């Protein structure tokens, strides 16, 4: 009985979280500069790193330039990064991007509904999605050492052929 209660509590606590092995929730969001909507479905067939950031999140300031280098490292591979800015005031995100230009796709989600769909557990959070749109790894928080872990994960996913 106790075990059943504990299990149900655990299930309730993890309900909705996007775990590795689950399909990534789809989204269609405008970019910061051109307002052109970007859809995750457009990236099917590529390995995608979806990164949630905000201008007020200090580890994000550290992660964004390192992700830019990561993208350069995989420039020849089927790999893309989509950064989702979660500033409630879009102007804050724009100011941040003017100070720290980012070369990869950056979209905005001031309502936070996509963050809710992914059920973020902390900031920043990133999700590595395979060619079939399945989440294969989740990283909560950021330290520079995460880049090496990500490289190993990306190498494994890029090596797999497209469906």
């Amino acid at each position, binding site marked *: 009985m106790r075990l059943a209660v504990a299990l149900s509590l655990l299930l309730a606590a993890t309900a909705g979280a996007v775990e590795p092995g689950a399909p990534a929730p789809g989204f269609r969001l405008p970019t910061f500069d051109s307002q052109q909507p970007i859809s995750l479905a457009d990236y099917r067939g590529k390995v995608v790193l979806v990164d*949630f950031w*905000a*201008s*007020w*999140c200090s580890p994000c300031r550290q992660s964004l330039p390192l992700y830019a280098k990561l993208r350069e490292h995989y420039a020849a591979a089927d790999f893309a990064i989509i950064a989702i800015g*979660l*500033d*409630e*005031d879009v102007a*804050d995100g724009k100011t941040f991007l003017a100070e720290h230009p980012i070369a990869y796709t950056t979209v905005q989600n001031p309502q*936070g509904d996509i*963050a*809710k769909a992914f059920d*973020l*557990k*902390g*900031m920043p*959070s990133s999700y590595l999605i395979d060619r079939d749109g399945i989440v294969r790894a989740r990283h909560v928080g950021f330290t520079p050492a995460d880049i090496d872990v990500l490289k190993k994960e990306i190498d494994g996913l890029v090596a797999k052929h497209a469906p």
Partner: protein
Amino acid sequence: MVWSPNMHRSLLLLIAVATLAGCATSPVQPWQRGRLARWDMRWDADPLRAAMDAHTYFSKEGTTGAIGAAGGGCGCN
């Protein structure tokens, strides 16, 4: 209608239950902490003011250890 003790109890219960509803707010999500992260939301948003407050407090409460220092001094600095 006559006011009875039972009605009194029912009213109290109703107020108690209505007050409980105030606890039903959802917690702040990780992506909603932009305002909380603002500098002026800190306890010590003004470092000079915080240092002055700490000095006053230390001077007054030095004998009891004040803000982390060992107690037992004269508290007269």
